[in-house]
């Protein structure tokens, strides 16, 4: 049956090729975007773990993902700590690693934290090797996994952050998210780096974010609401809020992916329908003959469904393989800057092929029914 259907497809090589190619284009796009979305979802997932295990307090008018306007006064730390249920509030100061950092996904950051109180915060991520930052550390850094790879540095090595030498004391486990690109330093060191970069800006007693670690057993959402109520002039991002912002972020990409899938569905599907209708009308007499010599309706139906499913399958397979090739090449191109833009997961590989095959099958339903319902004598009469 398979061989027979393949031979039938081969009768109109150019037409079959063009139809398959239409699917290839759609599935190629779907695969590349799928890999992109898989990478984003991976980052988002990791980010969720980081952002939802604490309450972030930022200047009012900014969001979780930068866009910070102004800074928080350090006095806010005490105000927050006075709120019942807060275990500690840690002032943080972040600045981009490069002078200008325009990259894909989360930027590489230098994150300064008040070391006297940051123990809980800094141990949210598991350490791979070395040690955590301790009170009194100066010009010392713990690197996220991606950054450690980029600098090819481990504990004991010296790295240059914004022109200053820092000793690496530890490296975190990969989280596949934003903190992988962070260099954690002390609050003072981060502030000093900022002063260097902005010599005319009076920098004193400010923080970019204040991370709040709750006391055990305290409901984070309620605590976030309490902080927002009692501390004026700040924006409180609760874990739920963080999750919402993060999922909104990934929702947009998933929507784009769905859009591409829909276009592939319409364009590819219609071209398969068209091809199959032509095949059926070309082979009307053959269908009549088959029915005359005893083919059942279901057998004719199955034959044409198989043919259109195979068009979908081949298009999907080739499109997916081309997509993987493109993804591999792009990832290699960006490998030097240590930014993996795409992730290939099982879904990325299997999904598009399954999708294309189902699409082909669905597109074949109408033409196949048309073929199966032909009356033998009428079909035989046709020339």
């Amino acid at each position, binding site marked *: 049956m398979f061989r*027979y259907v393949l031979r039938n497809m081969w009768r109109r090589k150019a037409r079959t090729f063009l139809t398959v190619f239409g699917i290839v284009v759609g599935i190629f796009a779907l695969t590349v975007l799928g890999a992109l979305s898989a990478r984003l979802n991976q980052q988002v997932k990791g980010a969720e773990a980081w952002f939802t295990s604490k309450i972030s307090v930022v200047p009012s008018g900014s969001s979780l993902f930068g866009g910070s306007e102004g800074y928080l006064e350090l006095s806010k730390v005490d105000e927050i700590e006075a709120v019942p249920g807060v275990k500690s509030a840690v002032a943080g100061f972040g600045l981009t690693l490069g002078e200008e950092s325009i990259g894909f996904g989360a930027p590489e950051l230098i994150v300064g934290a008040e070391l006297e109180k940051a123990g809980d915060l800094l141990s949210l991520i598991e350490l791979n090797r070395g040690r955590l930052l301790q009170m009194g550390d100066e010009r010392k850094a713990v690197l996220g996994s991606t950054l450690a790879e980029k600098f090819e540095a481990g504990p004991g090595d010296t790295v240059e952050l914004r022109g200053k030498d820092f000793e690496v004391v530890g490296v975190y486990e990969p989280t596949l998210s934003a903190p992988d690109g962070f260099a954690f330093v002390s609050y003072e060191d981060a502030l000093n780096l900022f002063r260097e970069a902005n010599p005319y800006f009076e920098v004193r007693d400010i923080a970019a974010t204040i991370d709040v670690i709750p006391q055990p057993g305290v409901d984070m959402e309620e605590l976030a609401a309490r902080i927002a109520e009692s501390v004026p002039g700040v924006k409180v991002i609760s874990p739920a809020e963080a999750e919402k912002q993060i999922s909104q972020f990934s929702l947009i990409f998933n929507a784009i992916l769905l859009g591409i899938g829909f276009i592939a569905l319409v364009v590819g599907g219609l071209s398969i329908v068209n091809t199959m209708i032509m095949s059926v009308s070309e082979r009307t007499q053959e269908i009549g003959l088959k029915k005359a010599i*005893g*083919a059942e309706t279901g057998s004719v139906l199955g034959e044409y469904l198989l043919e259109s499913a195979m068009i979908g399958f081949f298009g999907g397979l080739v499109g997916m393989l081309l997509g993987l090739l493109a993804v591999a090449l792009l990832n290699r191109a960006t490998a030097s800057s240590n930014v993996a833009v795409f992730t290939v997961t099982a879904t990325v590989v299997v999904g598009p092929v399954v999708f294309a095959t189902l699409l082909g099958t669905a597109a074949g339903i109408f033409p196949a029914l048309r073929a199966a319902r032909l009356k033998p004598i009428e079909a035989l009469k046709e020339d």
Partner: protein
Amino acid sequence: MIVASGLRKIYRVGSMEIKAVDGLDIFIEAGEFLSIVGPSGSGKTTLLHLLGLLDAPTSGSISIDGMDTAALSPKQLTRLRREKIGFVFQEFNLLPVLNARENVELPLRYLKVPAEERRRRALRALEMVSLTDRADNRPGQLSGGEQQRVAIARALVTEPVLVLADEPTGELDTYNTCKVIELMRDLNRDTGQTFAIVTHDPMVADYTRRIVSLRDGRIASDSAGPEAALECDAGAGDIR
């Protein structure tokens, strides 16, 4: 054994009624070798379609081997056709993507015969039509005469009780016409299968044992054929 009585087939085209077959009784015994002749429009092809269960009569009944077909569902009719009837058409109707053997195997596929047996029976059928050496050729590589012989092998491979041929020599030259008729006559003699051949070629009819002549959807005459001796003149050549 086929018994048709009071057979009527009326087509409606707009407000017009076309009586393709108009009250026809026919009795065909097992092992007969008959031709159905008549001018075009006399209803011979329609009759063949009715006898072959490809079309349902407007009224009247057909029974094959004692089974009344009127009560059967489309699915049962398909099965009966598959098991009891073989078809040979004017235009051969071989599938171009299959080779000769695979074309002959096709009806056995629909009978769900296992692959090995299918192959064996197809080769035997090709042997009966003297085309063993062409088994691997596709229809495009065969002459008209050879294609029609493949089609006959396909009709015979299921060992049907009735072989219906619709103008089987219509697209063949004199030599191949002769060969095809000779083949069918030999097969009829050797296997005892019933052959009913629709033709407008008087030469073909003359070779058969019984000639049923139709006019306006009725039987005009039903007589014994001369069963002329066949001498195929090879000089006419097999045009490829």
